[in-house]
């Protein structure tokens, strides 16, 4: 599968996280919530007008900002 960024996924689409280039604070927040390379996620919905993006991971749901989602590579 080709590599793309999280915000390119369509609602309902699943993917595996490959790597991320977000700022460091966000990185540690993401990993301690179990969102790290190798983990499978599913995009739930996108907020209107490039608003937050909600994903499902490890059986719970979490929202990220659009600009942060752009820094997360998935495949």
């Amino acid at each position, binding site marked *: 599968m080709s590599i793309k960024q999280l915000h390119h996924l369509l609602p309902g689409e699943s993917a595996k996280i490959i790597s991320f280039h977000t700022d460091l604070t966000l990185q540690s927040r993401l990993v301690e919530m179990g969102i790290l390379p190798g983990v499978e996620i599913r995009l739930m919905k996108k907020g209107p007008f490039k608003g937050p993006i909600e994903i499902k991971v490890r*059986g719970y749901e979490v929202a990220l900002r659009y600009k942060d989602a752009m820094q997360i590579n998935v495949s």
Partner: protein
Amino acid sequence: MDNKTPLIALMGNPNSGKTAIFNLLTGMNQKVSNYPGITVEQRRGNAQLTDTCAVQIMDMPGTYSLTPESLDEKIVAQQTLKWLNGIDRPAAIISVVDAGNLSRNLYLTSQVMELGIPVIIALNMMDRVKKKNQNIDSKELQKILGVHAVVPMSAREKWGINELQSELLNVITKANIEVSTHIQMEIPKEIEKIISPISEFLYDKNNHDNYITNVQALRIITRKSALELYSECKNLTGAEIKSLTLLRDNVAHEIDELGLNHRILEATLRFEMLDNALKDHTLINQSEIKNQSRSERVDKILTHKWVGPLIFITLLYGIFQSIFTWATIPMQYIDSAVGYLGNYCVQLFSPGILRDLLVEGIISGVGAILIFLPQILILMFFMTILEDTGYMARVAFMMDKLMNKIGLHGKSVLPLMSGYACAIPGIMATRTIDSWKERLITIIVLPLISCSARLPVYTLMIGAFIPNKPILGFLNLQGLTMVLMYFLGTVTAMVIAAIISRFIEEKGKSSFVMEMPPYRMPLAVSLFRQVYTRGKLFVINAGKIIMAISIVLWFLASFPKPDSDEESFSIQNSYAGKIGHAIEPVIAPLGFDWKIGVGLITSFAAREVMVSTLATLYNVEDEGDDFVGITEALKNEVNPLTGLPKYTPLVALSIMVFYVYAAQCMATFAIVKNETNSWKWPLIMIVYMTGLAYIGSLLVYQGGQMLGFT
């Protein structure tokens, strides 16, 4: 709470139901205080396990890990580091785990297990797991992890709490419990070697076992701020920390050169361990992410692009409607109770300064604020419902983009909305915003939203001076003016937010990683407890400052007493009157005379006091909410120089604009001082709001005159 009662720490992720378990264990027997110097709440409570045996439960802030990132996490990380070094160690730790979200919740649990303190896992929310026809073998889980016990339970359905209590009893009565960590991270030899300079350093200092030392080293590598904790714990000297910092930076660099990321090292190893340990036990269902949950279907409507905001606005309208209608009756009761108390004191004590101080100063001053308590409580009630059902998270989701543009957070929306009723509960509600900068900006602009205390002033001015005539066929000039005032405050708040967001430095990066909890019914018990706690906080914290300022204002309005008894006392000769006269030159360009000036000063107690002050000044008997007397008095006031009416629609407009902006409610600033922990921010707010008020009124009055309005 004496020192002999064994201490039990309660830890867990946010949204794991930790607070519900704390409430079940302690009942009404709890104490809420702030951690020293910061506004994170610290709860402690006694739990009676048997007739003779009680423990003290300490509720730690909800966190995802022991890595010190946010304020809450710093507190928890600091506390646990102390425990690790043998200071104030609790007898046991209850780790609350959301059974539906096992691997993420066990991340924190596995870190806690490394402290060498017996851990009991409260496997909460089992009701939801069972509803999905799944089960978790708690015995098996206990064996895998090696914790003292795993207690399946549901705080919501109130089962499992007895088992949790008996496990607690078990752990505190047994002497010398062997604590071992069954599962350990597999630290590759290569990494162990790289981190060895740090681990050897720590080993020499603390003498913990090899594994624990390695874990500590990993945490320092992950996050530099973990080192600050050591200096705050006075565990290492300044020089030692310096050399450790150097070591740490080198090691972090070496790890990155291997193609790894030092920031996610601990998390990667730890989740690897957890995922491996749990993988043979269908405990976590990876295919879970494929299923559509009920919440997801509900969300399709509630956060829909167009329908979502519509539902939100309808809900808000309903809430504010009920605040104004439901609060009327209790407000009348409080009003008459305060009046009754005042009269009672008048009869009880002999006339004199002390009686005046008590009745006119303290009772009426505090009464003026207490009258808003029903509105505050009702608003708090609805806010808590929105929060507990999970709807608030969806509002934040919908609004974040818009709010972020002006430097605010999706979670700023509800506090700002509460500002229409009263700024105080709004400011308290900003606690849910985890970015300090966005929270601070929300607090700073919040008092610009027209609260219900401005309403009496607007009503008086509009009723007296704005003609009740139709405009554009279907609108009414009076109604339109009122809407305009609310609009003015709201728009200004947005503009100010956008401006100051450029000047305030971030204390830690703002991030919007927000868990979207599943929708659920709020629990009545925790709902009422929350409302009660917040209400109490308001009365006690704000009350102290309000009492002090009420006394000062009373003094200013009642002294100096006239020299002879024949001379009747009038507020004109009081200090307040003198200040009013003294500031008249300053406020004259706004169209205000000294009487309005006195009103502005007394408004500092609460804005609606303006109305009663003017009533006193015109010697009008204020009969309840009936403004007719004062309305006529204001209309009839004649300017002695020109012979024309003194107050005109333009003056009224100028006064209203002043009230939209001015910093007048001392209770608000008392709360801001509490929430930000310094006088800096309240002072900045007083300055900028007063400036806005003056310039706004000046523009209205002078501009209006230039355009030929009166």
